[in-house]
């Protein structure tokens, strides 16, 4: 099946084409077609995975060269797909989680008049995402990269009749575009320095062909793209607003797949980042700062989906942090586990929104466990998994990253990461308790979601529980780490000041403490959290506005931009339009002269004709 990996992206593309043109007529079948094709892609990917595993470990790279794409002089790029442990991991996550979310969306989007269009966009997104992860060169990766950005735009603004949704879509597109433009420069630099864009050629030649400065420049430019796509500081502002899109979109694009593309890019290009060294440090710092920043911001949110959005940003920060420490297998383990439990959390949030008729404010939820017992279980599993309660998936992934910081002599980073892990348990236990526990703050009865929407959640919940045990029981010997080793190498563990058992115990105690605190504050009824914004308006303002970075950007970019626009309007009105209008007016005035010789008498025309002809003849005659 390895030669058929081109089928994996092609199936959803076919689905997108069919649904785009026939979606209206297919009715509900549009959704099943879309979900089925993504699932079929998953089946092909699993078959390819077994083929890959049957190869010896050092030969697990298979490139399928489909056709020449661009060939100009010495510049040549193929459409080529690459099956190696890294790309297969991503492909399985994208198709597997993608298929489940598609299935969920059939129920969630049931009453939407643009049902077929929605699934066309979703399938198109899966196609581009698969192009991104299966590409064998940077340009094809960039094609997928831009494509997922486009689909993100289309799906955030799917309900474009809401002004908030359409402006959120524009914001997401423009903000990520800043990173994309820099990333394209990085790709150009790769070609200029190494003369190729194929992964094997680039990584093979990099050690000899790149100076450290060039490697740093390329890595930082690629990182800029990754930061934009993965919503890390300073290009993170679009992600919370992107929650205006339908909830399955938030789960698929803004939690499980697209936002992790930045992590994939860094991990895929780790040869270049390692060559630079500086760039790896930047990756680590950006990740850690983003993780802490988003964790604090998440605690200040009352909108359920925005709280989850900041938690996504924080989790991806942890992935960057791990990649920056050269712990690529740890970053990938967290990526996979996060895809499971965050998709679960978002889709369960979708159940809540669905049940409460689009109520998103957690201050008007509370006590929903009576109405939605099943959803409560799903959300609790997702939240506890994220919080790092053993033996759920999130525990293994996050604990390994945090303790890796300790074992590699990064004590300050370890302290901060532990604090981040504590905060992440706090920020995810908070929506759990605010939404499903405590006092009821909403009179309407929330109806539980139908079976069609619960089935994918059951699968995701299963994965969110067991993925860690199965894939990453220990950092050195976990199955995922072993599988990725041919592509990413083995992470080098050092000796920590304390034993690994102690580190693990600290993680567990922190997570449990955070959940306990969250319960005490938001569910026990003994703390008047609703009065907090009045008692501490400053602190509450900083948290709920995410440290006012949005406002800072507005002040730095948006207002000067608007001022510049207004200045240009004045130039347009007073200079350009004025000049055109003046010319038109002059011509109009001059046209009053013409009728003086245009009196309508044939005779006068004939005379003019005669005189003209005579003059012409005279002129020619005199010249000869």
């Amino acid at each position: 099946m390895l030669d058929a990996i081109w089928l994996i992206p092609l199936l959803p593309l076919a689905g997108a084409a069919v649904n785009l043109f026939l979606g209206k007529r297919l009715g509900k079948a549009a959704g099943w077609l879309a979900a089925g094709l993504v699932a079929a892609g998953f089946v092909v990917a699993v078959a390819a995975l077994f083929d890959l595993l049957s190869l010896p470990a050092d030969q697990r790279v298979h490139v399928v060269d489909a056709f020449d794409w661009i060939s100009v002089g010495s510049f040549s790029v193929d459409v080529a797909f690459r099956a190696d442990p890294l790309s297969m991991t991503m492909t399985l996550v994208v198709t597997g989680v993608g298929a489940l979310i598609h299935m969920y969306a059939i129920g969630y989007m049931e009453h939407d008049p643009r049902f077929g269009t929605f699934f066309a966009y979703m399938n198109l997104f899966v196609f581009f995402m698969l192009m991104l992860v299966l590409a064998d060169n940077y340009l094809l990766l960039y094609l997928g990269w831009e494509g997922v950005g486009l689909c993100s735009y289309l799906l955030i603004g799917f309900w474009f009749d809401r002004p908030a949704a359409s402006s959120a879509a524009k914001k997401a597109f423009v903000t990520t575009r800043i990173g994309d433009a820099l990333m394209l420069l990085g790709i150009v630099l790769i070609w200029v320095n190494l003369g190729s864009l194929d992964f094997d050629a680039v990584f093979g030649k990099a050690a000899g062909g790149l100076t450290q400065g060039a490697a740093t420049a390329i890595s930082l430019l690629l990182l800029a793209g990754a930061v934009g796509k993965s919503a890390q500081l300073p290009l993170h502002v679009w992600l919370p607003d992107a929650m205006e899109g339908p909830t399955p979109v938030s789960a698929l694009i803004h939690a499980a797949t697209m936002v992790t593309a930045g992590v994939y890019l860094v991990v895929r290009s780790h040869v270049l980042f390692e060559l630079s060294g500086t760039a790896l440090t930047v990756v680590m710092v950006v990740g850690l700062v983003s993780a802490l920043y988003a964790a604090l911001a998440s605690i200040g949110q009352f909108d359920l989906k925005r709280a989850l959005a900041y938690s996504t940003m924080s989790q991806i920060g942890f992935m960057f942090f791990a990649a920056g420490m050269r712990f690529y297998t740890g970053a990938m383990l967290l990526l996979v586990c996060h895809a499971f439990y965050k998709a679960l959390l978002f889709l369960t949030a979708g159940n809540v929104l669905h049940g409460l008729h689009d109520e998103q404010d957690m201050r008007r939820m509370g006590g929903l466990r009576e109405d939605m017992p099943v959803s409560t279980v799903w959300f609790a599993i997702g939240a506890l998994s994220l919080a790092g309660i053993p033996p759920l998936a999130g525990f293994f992934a996050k604990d390994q990253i945090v303790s890796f910081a300790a074992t590699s002599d990064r004590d300050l980073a370890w302290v901060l990461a532990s604090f981040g892990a504590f905060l992440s348990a706090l920020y995810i236990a908070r929506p759990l308790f605010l939404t499903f526990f405590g006092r009821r703050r909403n009179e309407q009865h929330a109806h539980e979601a139908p079976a069609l929407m619960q089935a994918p959640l059951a699968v995701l919940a299963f994965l969110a529980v067991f993925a860690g045990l199965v894939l990453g029981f220990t950092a050195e010997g976990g199955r995922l780490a072993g599988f990725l080793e041919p592509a990413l190498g083995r992470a080098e563990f050092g000796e920590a000041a304390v034993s690994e058992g102690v580190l693990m115990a600290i993680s567990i105690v922190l997570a449990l403490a955070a959940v306990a605190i969250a319960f005490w504050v938001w569910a026990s009824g003994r703390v008047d959290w609703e009065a907090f914004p009045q008692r501490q308006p400053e602190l509450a303002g900083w948290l709920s506005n995410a440290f006012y970075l949005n406002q800072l950007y507005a002040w730095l970019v948006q207002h000067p931009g608007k001022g510049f626009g207004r200045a240009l309007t004045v130039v347009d009105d007073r200079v350009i339009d004025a000049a055109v209008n003046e010319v038109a007016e002059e011509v109009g005035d001059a046209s009053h002269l013409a009728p003086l010789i245009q009196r309508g008498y044939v005779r006068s025309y004939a005379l003019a004709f005669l005189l003209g002809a005579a003059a012409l003849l005279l002129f020619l005659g005199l010249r000869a």
Partner: protein
Amino acid sequence: MSTPISSFLVVSALLFSIGTMGVLVRKNALVIFMSVELQLNAVNLALVAFSRLHGNLNGQVLAFFSMVVAAAEVVVGLAIIVTVYRRRQSASVDDFTVLRG
């Protein structure tokens, strides 16, 4: 002894001038039309005269062309004049000054 070429050209020039004056000073569209015919035939005469001078048939061929074109033009022109007369009860070109600036 044949007639010198200049005689033909003088006649031709005279006819052309009469035709031109007719076009310029007459008001009746039919008369103007006849004057135009006079001009055309003056030119035809000159063409045939030059043809003889040069000893080839080019000028005569051209004269035939202009006769054919003139015939076609008369057909169209007369039709227009008749139609306009029916609508306006006038054949005077000075009455037809609708197309002015």
